């Protein structure tokens, strides 16, 4: 009796687990008959769609993917088919991206991939995959960055200890030139690229103005609040509430013109000295396997355009995350991403 009970208990645990895991698996049996008829006519989805997101559930990319999938379903843009968002994070996302890049025709029409500037950079740097191994369907939104500081924090850096003004980036450049070490914090992907461009523009070396990499922007902001860095690179949305509460100050707009609202006080680089403005757009887009048919590419690009024009997209996504609305269809997006990639590779000496 006891054995039986224990066994049942153990089995129950395993089963309930298996049930939890099962949900996220894709359940799309290949329907070969349906594919043949789509060759000539315009593409209409006739089976479930798998949306691969190479970041973990709950993060920015995941919310982006699920929001678009929601709007597609609610506005009945995908012929009543189900979109399954699958988070594939193995190998920092490279495995998921490679799977999409090498997918065979057929399933390719039913596979979408979240593809951001933050995904492109490590991919180009660490693997042989390039944006040309994908079809770029659309760019949905663009973000820019600012430099923030927390002057009220405990002075832990050389610059702060030497009495440097963390509200004045021009003074920090001057101090760095005269031998006081200034340190900037930010995340791995987009922010470090912006830092590189900033450094090149103001003509300093990493030994004069250093950079500490954090796993996420929120970690970097924490470091600024704790006084561990002098300045932190962040997108407006992540820093917004700290600016509102007075904990962070916007010091420099990394854009061609000033921001509005509570960030309007931050000058651009050309305003504080004889420099060009530094602006590295951070884009969020959607890609697909290279083997996706042209009809399907046209269909998805169009559907994504409808999503970007919907009210829900504006109120529930763009406004909430303070992003710039910038839809580019497949042709414009491909051109844009290709240029971005070439620029990045040239800057990092990649070929």
């Amino acid at each position, binding site marked *: 009796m006891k*054995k039986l009970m224990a*066994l049942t208990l*153990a089995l129950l645990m395993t089963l309930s687990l298996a049930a939890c895991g099962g949900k996220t698996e894709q359940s799309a049996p290949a329907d070969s008959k349906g594919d043949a008829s789509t060759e000539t006519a315009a593409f209409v989805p006739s089976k479930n769609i798998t949306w691969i997101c190479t970041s973990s559930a709950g993060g920015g990319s995941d919310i982006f993917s699920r929001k678009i999938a929601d709007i597609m379903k609610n506005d009945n843009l995908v012929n009543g088919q189900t979109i399954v968002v*699958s988070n594939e*994070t193995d190998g920092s*996302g490279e495995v998921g991206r490679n799977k999409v890049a090498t997918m065979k025709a057929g399933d390719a029409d039913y596979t979408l991939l979240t593809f951001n500037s933050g995904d492109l950079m*490590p991919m180009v740097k660490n693997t042989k995959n390039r944006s040309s191994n994908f079809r770029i369907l659309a760019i949905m939104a663009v973000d820019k960055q600012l430099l923030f500081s927390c002057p009220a924090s405990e002075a832990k850096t050389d610059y702060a200890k030497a009495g440097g003004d963390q509200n004045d980036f021009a003074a920090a450049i001057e101090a760095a030139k005269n031998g006081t070490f200034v340190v900037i914090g930010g995340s791995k992907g987009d922010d470090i690229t912006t830092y590189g461009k900033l450094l090149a523009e103001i003509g300093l070396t990493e030994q004069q103005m250093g950079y500490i990499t954090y796993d996420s922007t929120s970690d970097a902001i924490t470091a600024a609040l704790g006084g561990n860095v002098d300045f932190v690179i962040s997108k407006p949305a992540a820093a917004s*509430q700290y600016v509102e509460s007075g*904990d962070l100050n916007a010091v420099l707009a990394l854009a061609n013109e000033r921001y509005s609202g509570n960030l309007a006080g931050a000058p651009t680089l050309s305003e504080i000295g004889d420099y060009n403005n530094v602006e590295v757009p951070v884009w969020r887009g959607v890609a697909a396997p290279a083997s996706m048919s042209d009809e399907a590419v046209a269909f998805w690009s169009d559907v994504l355009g409808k999503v970007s024009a919907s009210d829900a997209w504006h109120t529930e996504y763009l406004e909430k995350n303070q992003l710039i609305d910038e839809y580019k269809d497949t042709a414009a997006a491909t051109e844009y991403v290709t240029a971005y990639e070439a620029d990045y590779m040239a800057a990092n000496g990649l070929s």
Partner: protein
Amino acid sequence: MENFLSLLAGFQVALAPENIGACLLGAVLGLIVGAMPGIGSLAGCALLLPLTYKFNPTTAIIMLGALYYSNMYGGSFSAILLNIPGDSPAITTALDGYPMAKKGRPGQALMAANMASFIGGTIGILILTLTASGLATLGLKFGYAEMTLILLIAMTSISWLIGENPIKGIVITMLGILVASIGMDTLSGAPRFEFGNMYLLGGVPFTPFIIGCVGFAQVIKLINEREADEKKRANEDSKTKLSIRQSMLTGHDFKRMLPPTIRSGVMGTFVGVLPGSGATTGSMVGYAMQKKFKSEEPMGTGAIEGIAASEAANNAAAAGAFAPLLALGIPGSGTGAVLLGGLMMWGLNPGPLLFDSNPEFCWGLISSMYMANVFTLLVAILVIPFLIKILSVPVKYMIPIITCVCIVGAYSTSNSMYGVIVMFVSGIVGYLLDKNGFPTAPMLLAFVLAPMLEKNMRKAFIASQGSLKIFVDSPLKLVLLAVFLVLILTPVVKSIRRKMQAKKAQA
């Protein structure tokens, strides 16, 4: 005083019938999921998060808080009964919990873990109530140099696990550090030891690695012991029955575990508050500290003090981690990040404004933690007799069941077979190492702590431009450095003194 008034208002929210129900449901589900080896609090919270979407934010976060909390309790069950730590904070619980269960006192070991969790958690919540927002700013005072020193202190806990052969112990520790360094460099993003393999670019995933090294290695061991076990069972006439009453701790047990529990509870809370340290560092520092105090049995052989120190610190740190999460929006751990994701889904922005803009939510959550703590304790005690039945299942049935659980747990971390492969490989390697007298625990601790230590130390050196002065330029750093030196030097001094005394006796 103001805090207590707010807390009372919070209880009004938390004691609404639907919130009590959510809390109870969260406690039961969390305990079940947390008790499954390899799931642990991080995967548990992630799996159960979607359940809470149906509720309003306050009810949902109360349920999530209860889930988080009871997951922490549950993690110790498989550690004690099967020697499979559900997640990293439970590694140190297994060190003494499993030997104690093997000694024939599994009920008491579970009860000790539950009681220590409860007391440690209560201490954590009390400190959180009193200081909530102040505590968070205290955490910010810790720079990279301070964190490096704290992690060095946590690292010393490895030395207690090394066992009889120090060389083998050091080899295995280095192996843990080596495995941890596979993947992307945390600061520069450059690939390390990935040998052109795309999977290795993301590093060796923690959960499958630990399930393999400990859980699956255990299965291979069980296969070898199968025949012996059947013979033993045939000879055994009366099987021991265990009830709640028989699992009760004696007054003496309680006296043994109380001091380490309170010490670890207070210390764990503060470690939990530090950004990026979380429950794992908490339980390891707690365990390392306990080594310096007296315990009746040697630590690592089933000492109840060891279970108490590790569990109290881990639950206190879980409570402490809420301070930076709520007041600054900083998740202290992976689980914290899932909670943060949940909060943002409901349109709440944890951060400096949260206590002002949503007081009923913040205090509702804090007061619900008191409730969750009590509920979880009750549920945990009630399930002890059921859990103990696991131990009376014959080995031949346990082998396939644990194997299944190992595979499912390894698969669920990233929903891919990669985790399962890592689990099998590390299981076989873990078994071979263990068979040849290499203890695996130091490898796991090194695997968890080394990346954190590397990250903080390198950041400290960037900030100081390579100067060592950064580790000694404030009183706090000097105190931490002194603690570290005392911890590593006392055994050396002791052995020198012993040798000198022996010489004197000879002369």
